C-alpha cells in the first residue's frame, strides 16, 4: 500500500480527525490565516524571505550527526541525529515561528501571542518578534514557569511579556486556553502564533508546512551519507510538531517505518502519563478531533511528563490519523527510560539533548536492539538540553534540594 502525504479536506480533516471546533468569533481569523497562507505558500517573494531567514538567521540546513558511540547501546544500529538542537534558539521551533511571524506581518498584525510549555516555543516566538518588530505576549502555565525559570528570563530579555497562567492544571493546556481567550478579544490586530501541529484548522497544516524542511533536509542527508533511506524514523510526540516535521517527507516512502514516542510519564497504564494516543481516546480538544486523555464524561485528565514540552493531554490530528491508518506507530517511553537515554547521549556523544528529544533517543535504543546492526535509524534531536539542566541535575541527584551543587 502506498501512502501519499495526507492532505486535509477543505475543512481541515485528516480522515475522521482534525477539523475546526472553535468559537464562531475565531472563524473569520482562522479563515484569514488559511487564505493568507494559501496565498504566500507559493509566493516567490515570501518564500525567498523565509528561506533567507532560515539560512542566515536560524542556521539551516541543520546537521546530520552519526552517533557512533551511542549506536553501541542500540544493538549496533546506525543512529543518525537530525540536529535541530543546533538551530538558533535551540530547537526545531524556530522554523515555524519565523514563517508565522512573517505571515502575521503580511496580515497587517502588530501583536503576536503564543503559548509555551517547556519555553522553547515561547523563546522562539519572542525571538522572531524581536527580529521583526512585533509586540509579543507569551502565556505559560505557572507550574512550567517554575520548572523552566531560565526560559522565562530569556523571553523577558527578548522583550516579550510572560504571563503565568494560574488556573486549571497550570501547564501547557491551560496556557493554550488562555491564549485563545486573549485572541478572541484582540483578534483584529493580534496573531496567535500556534506552536504545535494541533489546534483548529489551519494550524496543524500550517505548522507542518513550515516544518516540512526538517524531514526534507534529513531525507537528502541520509541518502547522501548511507546511500539509502533509513529503516526507521523516530521522534518524540507531545503536540507533535517535531514529529510531523521529520515524518512528513518520509510518509510516501512506504519502507520507512515511522515511530512517534509519546511521554509515558510514570507508565502509560498509570494516571501519571501524557501518552494520549496509547492511553487516550478520540475526542475534541483545543479545536480539533483527536486522541485525548479524558474521563468517561469527556473531562480532560491531567497529564504528567518529566518533560514540560510533552506534558500535554492530546496530540495533533495528523498524528491521530497516521496512528489510525497504521502508517506511523506510537509507543510510550517512561520518564525513567527518557532520562537514561538523556544520560547516555551526554556521556557517549557529548550532546546534552532536551528531555523531550530524549524520549526519541530512548525509542531509538529500543528500535535498534530490535532491528539490529544492519539497520539505519534517523532520530529527530528536536532540541538541546540547556533548559533542562536543573531538572536533570535534580533527577540524577547532582544537586541538593536547594539547587546547590
Amino acid at each position: 500500500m502506498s501512502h501519499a502525504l495526507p492532505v486535509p479536506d477543505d475543512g481541515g480533516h485528516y480522515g475522521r480527525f482534525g477539523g475546526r471546533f472553535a468559537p464562531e468569533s475565531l472563524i473569520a481569523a482562522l479563515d484569514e490565516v488559511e487564505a493568507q497562507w494559501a496565498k504566500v505558500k507559493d509566493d516567490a517573494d515570501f518564500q525567498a524571505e523565509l528561506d533567507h531567514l532560515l539560512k542566515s538567521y536560524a542556521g539551516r540546513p541543520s546537521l546530520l550527526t552519526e552517533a557512533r558511540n551511542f549506536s553501541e547501546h542500540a544493538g549496533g544500529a546506525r543512529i543518525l541525529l537530525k540536529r535541530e538542537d543546533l538551530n538558533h534558539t535551540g530547537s526545531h521551533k524556530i522554523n515555524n515561528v519565523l514563517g508565522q511571524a512573517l505571515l502575521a506581518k503580511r496580515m497587517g498584525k502588530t501583536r503576536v501571542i503564543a503559548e509555551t510549555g517547556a519555553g522553547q516555543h515561547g523563546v522562539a516566538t519572542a525571538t522572531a518578534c524581536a527580529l521583526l518588530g512585533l509586540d509579543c505576549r507569551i502565556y505559560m502555565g505557572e507550574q512550567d514557569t517554575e520548572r523552566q525559570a531560565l526560559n522565562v528570563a530569556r523571553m523577558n530579555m527578548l522583550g516579550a511579556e510572560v504571563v503565568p497562567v494560574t488556573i486549571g492544571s497550570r501547564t501547557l493546556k491551560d496556557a493554550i486556553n488562555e491564549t485563545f481567550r486573549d485572541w478572541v478579544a484582540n483578534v483584529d490586530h493580534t496573531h496567535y502564533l500556534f506552536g504545535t501541529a494541533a489546534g483548529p484548522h489551519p494550524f496543524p497544516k500550517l505548522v507542518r508546512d513550515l516544518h516540512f524542511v526538517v524531514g526534507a533536509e534529513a531525507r537528502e542527508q541520509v541518502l547522501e551519507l548511507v546511500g539509502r533511506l533509513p529503516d526507521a524514523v523516530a521522534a518524540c510526540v507531545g503536540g507533535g510538531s517535531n514529529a510531523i516535521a521529520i515524518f512528513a517527507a518520509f510518509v510516501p516512502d512506504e519502507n520507512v517505518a515511522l515511530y512517534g514516542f509519546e511521554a509515558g510519564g510514570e507508565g502509560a497504564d498509570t494516571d501519571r502519563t501524557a501518552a494520549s494516543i496509547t492511553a487516550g481516546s478520540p475526542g475534541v480538544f483545543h479545536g480539533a478531533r483527536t486522541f485525548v486523555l479524558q474521563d468517561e464524561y469527556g473531562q480532560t485528565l491531567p497529564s504528567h511528563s518529566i518533560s514540560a514540552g510533552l506534558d500535554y493531554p492530546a496530540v495533533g490530528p495528523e498524528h491521530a490519523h497516521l496512528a489510525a491508518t497504521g502508517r506511523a506507530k506510537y509507543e510510550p517511553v517512561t520518564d525513567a527510560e527518557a532520562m537514561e537515554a538523556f544520560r547516555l547521549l551526554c556521556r557517549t556523544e557529548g550532546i546534552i539533548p532536551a528531555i523531550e528529544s530524549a524520549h526519541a533517543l530512548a525509542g531509538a535504543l529500543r528500535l535498534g536492539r530490535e532491528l539490529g546492526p544492519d539497520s539505519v535509524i534517523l532520530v529527530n534531536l528536536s532540541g538541546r538540553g540547556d533548559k533542562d539542566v536543573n531538572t536533570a541535575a535534580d533527577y540524577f541527584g547532582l544537586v541538593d534540594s536547594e539547587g546547590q551543587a
Partner: protein
Amino acid sequence: MMPTTTLRSKLAQAREADRAALIGYLPAGFPDVESSIRVVQAMVEGGCDVVEVGLPYSDPMMDGPTIQRAAGLALDSGTTTDDVFQVVEATAATGAAALVMSYWNPIERYGVERFATELAKVGGSGVITPDLIPEEADEWVAASDKAGIDRVFLVAPSSSDRRLALTTEACGGFVYAASLMGVTGTRAQVSDTAEVLVRRTREVTRDSGLPICVGLGISNGTQAAEVAAYADGVIVGAGFCQRILDAPDLETGLVAVRSFAEELAEGVRSR
C-alpha cells in the same frame, strides 16, 4: 415540522408582550447539585424566562474568570453529565424553558444521540454549543432533529454575512449573538457592536423570524434594557455566578440572585 419546544413558546410570549426574554445561565453543580437547583429556582422566581444549565467542563476556552471559577467549583464538587440532566429536569419543573450550554467534547463523549434523547426525556428544550460550528455539526443536527430539541449556534461581530446566513439557518429556538469579541464576564458597558450584529443578523432571518438573543458582558438592569431595545432576548451568566461566589452562605446568595433577576426582568420590560 418539529413539535414546538418550551423555549419557542417562551420567546413567542415575550415577543407578544413586546418585551425581550430574560435568559439566565448557571453551571449545574455550582456550588453543588442540590444548591444549583435552588439557585435556578431563585433565578426563575426573579423573572428568568429561560435558564441555560451549564455543563461544567475542564477546559472552558470561551469563559472568563468568573464562570471558570464557578464551573471549576462544580467539577470539584463531583458534578457529572448525569447531574446536569437532573438540574435540567428541576429547571423544567419550574415552568421556565431549560437549555443546556455545553462545550462539545462532553456531549460527544456521552454519545451525541444519547445526549439528545436524554435531554428531551427530562424536559430540556435544546442545547447551546459555543465551540461547535454548523460545518462540524452533521451528527448533532440529525440527533437533535430526531429528539425534537433546539440547536442554538452562535454568531459573532466577526461573522461574515455568508456565515450569518449559514449559522442562523442551522439554528432552532434562537440564535445566540455574542455582543463583543471576547469571553464571558461582566463589562462596564455593552459594546455597540452588539446592536450592529443584531441588525445584520435580522437581515438574514427576516423570512424565518428566528429570535436573536444577545449575551456576553450584560451585568445590570440598565444594560439589559439597552439590549432589550433591539434584541429578542437578553442573556446573563457571570452576574448570577458572581452573586453566589460573593455570598457568605447559600441563603444570602439566593436572595441576591432573586433580586438581581428582578432587576434584569424589569430591564427587559422597559423597551
